[in-house]
């Protein structure tokens, strides 16, 4: 199902529509077929306009079995189209999915346009002379459905034909089966005209340039490789398999010809500590994980803060405490990123807003870490990591330079912990192997200049302040906060991370109705942009939608003494634009009534 969805996405990008996707799949790799737990889905919104989200309510729902219908029906818009493979609606599957009677046959789906087709039989018929096993034939049913959709939305099939040919290169019979099933689906739609109209979606008016579709996790991998390339440092990426971050490790591993080193460690702690070792040895060191892995890494992050080493930590957040819901999305690790360590241990915290922004922010995380000799935490989440959108490809020359404080010699005595650049508050990065600069660092408190172990009271207080200041000065090197919409008004919707699309769509809609509502999306969270306080006070109210219980909202309250309105959802799913829109209207009404 994920493959069918990604093929449709690929083709949709190629025909020039803007799009956004939401893959959703179970944590169990092979959940029992036909069960509700085993439903895997793929949602896409595309069109002529600037698309911000995968869509609140799909117009068309394609279901390959009764369980898929059960799980996804509540999402479908009233009067939407259901395309169902009726062959799978047998007694056993209906029972598994909890339907008492066959919904394709009773009247329960009356409010929808129901298109019920025996795709299994039709696909089999198209493949009948190939002598394939029934298992292989059954698998090609998804291709039949994809062909049907290509007809419905008037898309070319070449790119999927090419994909099939490459993917199953060594098995010509599978290539033939998939191509035939795809074509059969397309032809079936065209000849039967089962659905009264096929749609032609005009091209979106996107800025000119070269585009490709990109998923957030892949964009992070490319951002890291680009930072290694631009900085001239060797990229060392250490990770331990964890959903939904493993793809970053997989993707970085494909770029070995860039001199990139990937290391699959024995556990999360080894992943972060080996990255710290690589940073000490002069590399651009990165480790990626998800929330539970971050928890395991926290002591080591303290070491990187104390030793003032550059380190990039990526947290592709997932839902829930402990193991939670590994494949579902949430943004509840913001407090963890800020405070999840012993003592005063500040780090820079960034958050990507969209799948494409994952590239920019991964690059930005590397730039800040290296330039300032600090650990940087980049927050993404499952929705961004697996979601995709078209990407206007940047040129390497557009990316900012990445400077570092590596030295090869000093005049006089070397002082390893002296701040050599007050603007960045970086200490010198003296790499093992450099003559005359031998020195020792560690997690014990260090003298502010020599770096020798120090239990001196004044020195310790000075160092605590210095580590905070190292984070604070980053504010001089990041963009100021800029609102979408007017700079002042009745309501500011303040967001961070993957809620960008839903907030932007909602704000666009209410602005379209003439309301004084603006959107500010934070990508730099620690430190905040320097002007954030000034921006916030220009609005009567500040609404903070978050997929947690109000983490940014509370930080804003305590930092700026602004009575933020918290708006929270913790269902393992992203916000719908309509939910935010409704909340905006509610707040506007209250404000007016007050």
């Amino acid at each position: 199902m994920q493959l069918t969805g990604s093929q449709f996405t690929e083709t949709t990008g190629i025909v020039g529509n803007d799009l956004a996707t939401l893959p959703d799949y179970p944590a169990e790799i092979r959940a029992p077929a036909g069960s509700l737990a085993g439903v895997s889905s793929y949602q896409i919104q595309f069109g002529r306009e600037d698309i911000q989200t995968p869509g609140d309510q799909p117009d068309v729902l394609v279901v390959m079995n009764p369980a898929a219908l059960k799980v996804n029906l509540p999402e479908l818009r009233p009067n939407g189209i259901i395309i169902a493979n009726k062959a799978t609606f047998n007694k056993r599957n209906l029972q598994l999915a909890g339907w008492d009677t066959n919904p394709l046959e009773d009247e329960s789906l009356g409010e929808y346009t129901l298109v019920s087709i025996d795709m299994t039989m039709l696909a089999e018929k198209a493949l009948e002379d190939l002598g394939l096993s029934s298992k292989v034939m059954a698998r090609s049913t998804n291709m039949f459905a994809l062909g049907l959709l290509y007809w419905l939305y008037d898309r070319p099939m070449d790119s999927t034909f090419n994909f099939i040919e490459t993917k199953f290169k060594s098995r010509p019979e599978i290539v033939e089966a998939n191509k035939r099933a795809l074509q059969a689906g397309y032809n079936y739609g065209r000849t039967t005209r089962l659905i009264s109209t096929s749609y032609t979606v005009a091209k979106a008016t996107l800025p000119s340039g070269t585009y490709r579709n990109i998923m957030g996790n892949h964009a992070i991998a490319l951002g890291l490789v680009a930072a290694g390339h631009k900085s001239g440092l060797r990229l060392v990426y250490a990770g331990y398999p964890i959903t939904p971050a493993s793809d970053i490790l997989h993707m970085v591993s494909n770029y070995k010809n860039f001199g990139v080193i990937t290391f699959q460690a024995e556990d999360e702690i080894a992943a972060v500590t080996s990255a710290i070792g690589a940073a000490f040895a002069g590399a651009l060191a990165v480790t990626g994980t998800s929330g539970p892995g971050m928890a395991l890494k926290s002591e080591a992050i303290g070491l990187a803060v104390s030793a003032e080493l550059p380190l990039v930590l990526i947290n592709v957040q997932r839902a829930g405490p402990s193991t939670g819901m590994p494949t579902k999305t949430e943004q509840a690790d913001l407090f963890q990123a800020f405070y999840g360590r012993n003592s005063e241990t500040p780090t820079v915290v960034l958050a990507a807003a969209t799948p494409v922004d994952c590239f920019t922010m991964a690059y930005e995380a590397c730039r800040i870490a290296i330039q300032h000799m600090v650990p940087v935490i980049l927050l993404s989440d499952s929705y961004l990591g697996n979601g995709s959108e078209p990407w206007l490809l940047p040129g390497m020359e557009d990316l900012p330079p990445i400077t570092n404080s590596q030295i090869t010699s000093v005049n006089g005595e070397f002082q390893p912990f002296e701040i050599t650049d007050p603007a960045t508050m970086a200490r010198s990065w003296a790499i093992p192997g450099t003559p005359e600069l031998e020195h020792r660092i560690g997690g014990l408190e260090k003298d502010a200049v020599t770096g020798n172990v120090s239990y001196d009271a004044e020195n310790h207080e000075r160092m605590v302040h210095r580590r905070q200041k190292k984070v604070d000065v980053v504010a001089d090197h990041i963009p100021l906060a800029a609102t979408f919409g007017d700079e002042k008004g009745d309501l500011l919707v303040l967001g961070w991370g993957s809620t960008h699309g839903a907030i932007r769509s909602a704000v666009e809609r209410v602005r379209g109705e003439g309301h004084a509502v603006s959107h500010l999306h934070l990508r730099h969270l620690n430190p905040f942009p320097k002007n954030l306080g000034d921006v916030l006070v220009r609005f009567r109210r500040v609404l903070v939608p978050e997929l947690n219980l109000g983490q940014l909202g509370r930080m804003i309250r305590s930092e700026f003494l602004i009575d933020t309105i918290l708006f929270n959802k913790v269902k393992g799913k992203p916000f719908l634009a309509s939910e935010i829109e409704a909340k905006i209207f509610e707040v506007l009404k209250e404000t007016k009534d007050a």
Partner: protein
Amino acid sequence: MPRSEEATVTQALTRKDFTSDQTVRWCPGCGDYSILAQVQKTFPELGRKKEEFVFVSGIGCSSRFPYYMNTYGFHTIHGRAPAVATGIKIANPDLSVWVVTGDGDGLSIGGNHLIHLLRRNLDINILLFNNRIYGLTKGQYSPTSEFGKVTKSTPLGSIDWPFNPPSLALGAAATFIARSVDVEGQHLQDIIKAAYHHHGTSFLEIYQNCIIFNDNAFADVTEKDTKVEHQLLLEHGQPMLFGKDKSKGIGMDGHHPVVIDLTDGKHSIDEILLHDKTDRMTALMLSEMTYRPEFPVPLGIFYEIEINTYEDLIHEQIERAVEKMGPGDMEAILHAGHTWKVK
């Protein structure tokens, strides 16, 4: 040969060059002093540039070691030194990387990292100071303390069975396993050198006396009047002899090793096993003598074989990728896959 061992120094170094300006703060009489002295004496003889050495440690008395060496050093967090060292070595294989750890740091909290470093076989040298006690936290039993040991945390005696470090290393597929003793200066220096020259992970267990919390834990092998009966000094290709005038040796009785008395007139030297450090079964037999009072304590190199190191393979893969795909072209990977133009 380690990759950059060819890089020889132009100017001879001395022990002083490896001594940092920091005051050594171990308890007077601690075995760590001797180990530090042997390392500082040995290093000038390795013929390697000083700036290429990196000492990495975790937490514990032994882990203060890097502060006293005038080389690059990183005193990290509890148990994690093998992982930090791995990161350093993969990022720069030209460095000579040394891990200093203890029985608590290396075998308890950091046990996972230790076995995985051994399994991967990076060219890193591990010095495991085994004093069979937690010293820095003031005297709790450790994973090598004997069963029944009475300590602050085990007033009625420990009910943990101890780890056997060489057996653990063997189980973790180590390619170099050796043991020495803090007070045996020359022996320790020789083994340190051998560990350095081994291309792969070297696991060197050093019996170290904690005079404060576990004094005389290794008295059998350190005291003048007992050590000759208890030290089995291993030499590759030589018979396993020990005791006064080398009057005893290790032989076999069926499938079992036994101590053979060469003075009883019934046995000859031909029955004594020759040490073969490349043989795993021999290494296993020697390591299993560890907690068996009927046997002497083997000292020296139990096992050594040469296979590829992890970092060599990493960099080989990179070279091969460059050969196959050409050096990394950023524009090309950005534009990979399906792209389209919007005018």
